[in-house]
């Protein structure tokens, strides 16, 4: 009997080791566009190995319940994950991440309600992981609600930070009681989780939709940490390693994202900003908007040496990315050099626009980010702006009174000609006038993104 247990144990440990290896290799491969696709397959194989091995865990019962829960959870998530539109990916990541946090909290709850923790250290880790997991769960659900448009208001009031601090103190106090073993009543455990869930809600509600990507990334890292802590409690090496790797990788990713969006993490969490402030609009822009017909714009692009396309989220909203790529293919066939210039906040989170372009079939080596492409605008004959606004506004460089002053922008104004596809004449989403539109080398092509791109296609074809 002991032999049998020993071999099952050895099998499980070996499987978890293999899983940890596959996860780390998978993440490594996912950090380069050439190998990224295989990275998720590696990681997926790791998950499969670990899941199967766990069924042989010594002393496991409740198999029917486990299998039913796995089947339902997998089916719902699989269907939603395959069906969601690429524009809605950010909130789905938030949702799945929240589920992971909730699962970590559930593990902690089972352990703490049972109250059989042998050591204070084990109980403390269960409590800390439980708090973090519960915060990540409720916080991620709020983030999902905000990005999905279910929650439109950002709840803010005076003394909010103080209230959050009080809730945190309550959670820590109850956690201390539970962990120290003085008062492991079910009521204390329930109170602990209630306070933690509340903290996630009250922390996330004041944060505006524009800052949500950074918040989701932070909760992703936190869930990783919670998983690692619960891994310690269960003595599960796969959870410790995978959770810790995600915790540290996620923290780094959060910092990179915040930097790409020109925001600091502290600013995101505690300033209650992120809904575009429209109070200060900067110095008034003078000059006139000069319209252009699609036929003329098409000729200009067809005879250009180099065209740089600057897409913004507006392009994805208009579903124009397929038409834009069709236009680019025509230009490429004529020998024009075409590049896409992506600002870090062009989509709804850093890297999101790349996904949307990839969906339309644009190869990733035509896509350049801000640092790579900015020097190239000077040699471009045409910069085509579609659905982007603030990220090409030169006032960010030179007008200190503007609310976007200091934000890194794409230097589209340095191109020999700038064509802006825009619905109408009004100021953009943020309410800030765009000085680029008034430059001498800028022409406005009015119309819906998709229709304008189609008009350009027929113009290029008829050249």
């Amino acid at each position, binding site marked *: 009997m002991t032999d049998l247990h020993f071999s099952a144990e050895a099998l499980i440990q070996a499987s978890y080791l293999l899983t940890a290896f596959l996860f780390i290799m998978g993440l490594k491969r996912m950090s380069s566009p050439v190998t990224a696709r295989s990275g998720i397959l590696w990681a*997926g194989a790791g998950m499969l190995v670990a899941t199967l091995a766990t*069924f042989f865990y010594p002393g496991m019962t409740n198999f029917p319940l486990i299998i039913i829960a796995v089947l339902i959870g*997998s089916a719902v998530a699989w269907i939603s994950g395959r069906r969601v539109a690429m524009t809605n990916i950010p909130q789905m990541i938030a949702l799945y*991440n929240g589920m992971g946090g909730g699962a970590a909290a559930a593990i902690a709850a089972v352990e703490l309600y049972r109250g059989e923790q042998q050591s204070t250290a084990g109980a403390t880790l269960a409590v800390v992981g439980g708090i973090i997991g519960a915060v990540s769960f409720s916080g991620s659900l709020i983030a999902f609600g905000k990005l999905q448009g279910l929650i439109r208001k950002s709840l803010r009031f005076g003394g909010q930070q103080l209230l959050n601090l009080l809730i945190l103190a309550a959670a820590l106090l109850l956690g201390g009681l539970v962990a120290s073993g003085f008062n492991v009543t079910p009521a204390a455990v329930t109170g602990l989780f209630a306070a933690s869930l509340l903290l996630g809600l009250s922390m996330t509600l004041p944060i505006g939709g524009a800052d949500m990507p950074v918040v989701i990334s932070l909760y992703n890292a936190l869930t990783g940490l919670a998983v690692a802590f619960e891994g310690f409690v*269960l003595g599960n090496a796969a959870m410790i390693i*995978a959770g810790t*790797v995600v915790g540290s990788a996620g923290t780094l990713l959060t910092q990179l994202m915040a930097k790409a969006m020109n925001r600091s993490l502290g600013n995101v969490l505690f300033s209650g900003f992120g809904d575009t402030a429209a109070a200060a609009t900067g110095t008034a822009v003078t000059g006139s908007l000069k319209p252009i017909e699609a036929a003329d714009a098409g000729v200009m692009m067809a005879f250009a040496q180099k065209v740089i396309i600057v897409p913004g989220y507006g392009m994805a909203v208009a579903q124009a990315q397929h038409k834009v790529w069709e236009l680019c293919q025509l230009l490429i066939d004529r020998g024009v050099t075409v590049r896409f210039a992506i600002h870090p906040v062009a989509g709804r989170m850093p890297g999101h626009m790349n996904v949307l372009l990839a969906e339309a079939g644009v190869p990733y080596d035509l896509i350049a980010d801000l640092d790579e492409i900015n020097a190239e605008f000077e040699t471009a004959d045409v910069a085509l702006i579609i659905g982007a606004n603030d990220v090409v506004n030169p006032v960010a460089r030179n007008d200190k009174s503007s609310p976007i002053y200091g934000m890194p922008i794409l230097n589209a104004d340095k191109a020999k000609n700038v064509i802006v596809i825009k619905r109408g004449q009004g100021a953009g989403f943020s309410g800030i006038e765009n000085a680029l539109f008034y430059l001498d080398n800028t022409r406005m092509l009015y119309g819906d993104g998709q229709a304008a791109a189609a008009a350009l296609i027929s113009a290029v074809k008829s050249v």
Partner: protein
Amino acid sequence: MTGVVALYIFMLAAFTGYEVIAKVPVILHTPLMSGSNFVHGIVLVGAMVALGSATTPLEKSIGFIGVLLAAGNAVGGYAVTERMLEMFKSSGARGGKGSKGGKGGKDGQDGQGGAAKGSP
């Protein structure tokens, strides 16, 4: 596993996580976040163990919810990450025109379906 060994694992894993993605380009931020989101879906094995050792109805119900959520994390994270990454192609790989998404998704689906169904 002793406490000190666990701390060693923690420390080394933390450095690994940092180093592995230290040079990731901005274009992969969203897929990588989704990918790491999938990786912490490993919480599924913990939730299975928790439910597998549950005795009271309260423990069983919480454990059940835990496994449900964890399976959602793992499978959902896989589904969206795989969908995003399968679309990343270079000009060389473009080959035939009209590259459509959804082709490679099948294999992944079977693989993951195996995680859910093949297990019992």
